[in-house]
């Protein structure tokens, strides 16, 4: 298993931890509510330390304001399930990448009308400007309107075939 794959699939392997993971994994991104924090690769680790439940998440971008909402939602979900002592920690290393987004997440994103990120590959090289597929009509004949979009993680595109604008979840 490559390092990339290890970081991409951090699900715990004990039943007790997996139960917590599955609860935390129901929390969604407040900006893109079709994606769970597991789909995004933001949920990094779950552990039981004594009577404390520890959940680690990682911000997509350094200034991402959605982290606080995700943290609160994780605490709420776990409290509701009977876990009293919950600590949610943000970790910065290893740095988040869109390569951690699950295939299911990418599919849900497309159905929601946001183009999924192009793969960056294991070496982390920069995207070479391959065509971004329009999530509405499937055309590759699209054009970037703005490299910055409604949130840090998106850029704005327009489809030259169906003329519809759409968000692109930037590879990062």
């Amino acid at each position: 298993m490559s390092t990339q794959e290890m970081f991409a699939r951090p699900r715990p392997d004990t039943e007790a931890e997996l139960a917590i993971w599955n609860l935390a994994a129901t929390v969604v991104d407040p900006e893109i509510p079709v994606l769970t924090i597991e789909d995004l690769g933001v949920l990094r680790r779950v552990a039981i330390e004594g009577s404390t439940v520890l959940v680690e998440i990682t911000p997509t971008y350094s200034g991402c304001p959605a982290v606080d909402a995700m943290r609160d939602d994780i605490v709420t979900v776990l409290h509701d399930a009977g876990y009293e002592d919950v600590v949610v920690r943000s970790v910065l290393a290893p740095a988040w990448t869109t390569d951690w987004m699950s295939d299911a997440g990418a599919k849900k994103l497309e159905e929601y009308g946001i183009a999924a990120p192009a793969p960056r590959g294991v070496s982390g090289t920069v995207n070479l400007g391959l065509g971004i597929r329009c999530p509405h009509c499937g055309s590759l004949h699209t054009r970037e309107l703005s490299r910055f979009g409604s949130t840090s993680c998106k850029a704005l595109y327009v489809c030259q075939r169906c003329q519809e604008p759409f968000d692109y979840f930037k590879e990062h």
Partner: protein
Amino acid sequence: MNHSNHVVSTAITAESIADSSVVAPEAVAQYALGLGDDALVLAHRLGEWIANAPELEEDVALGNIGLDLLGHARSLLTYAGTAWDKSEDDLAYFRVENEFRSRQLFEQPIGDFAVTIARQLIASVYFAELYRALSRSEDPTLAAIAAKAVKEVDYHVDHSAQWLRRLGLGTKYSHERMQRGLDAMWPFVDELFRADPYAEDLVGIAVDPRQLRAGFEAVVPGLIVDAGLEIPAGESAQGGGRTGIHSEALGPMLAEMQVLARAHPGATW
């Protein structure tokens, strides 16, 4: 699968540094404070463009870039604050002008769009060089903050480089304005690469700014020439930001940035 958990659990907590047991050593905190101030001051300046940029897309772009920088500032100031039991807000809102360590480039008024693009080009390339080097720091928290930041500032370089080219090679008028923007910001370049008094004793942990100049010179002059513009000549500004010496621009900016927190200490919303 145990193995994968082990790898992830070595992750360094940094955003929630305040909640963790990580405490920055005094010298590292002093160094991080300067870097955090650079990012904070420029983030605030970029925020001034929101609803004022030449087009809606640029309101969004400059706002997004500012948000990334604010994220870097929050991590760096929080980390610095662990040494003195101070929060990021204590450091951002309750220090006076001569306690700020930011280099003078960042506090300059936003000027017109060309001035801002010129500063963004200089600042983004500088940050990219800095964070690339700092991601190899022996201090795991600084390394983690830098490794995350470097991917973001690379994208910022691209934004300013594209605008530099578009304005430099656009009309005669846009060319003149872009040249004036470069001329206005260029005197503040030199200070970025002068020795950082707080980095001196931190070999292997801090980055000596003097070592970043070659990387900057390998990128920026070429971009300027390719955009049909001239590399400005002339005197450098006096500098001194790291030791609390600032141009007249910082005071009014801090007054605006700090007024709410000072009028209503502890206010949250």
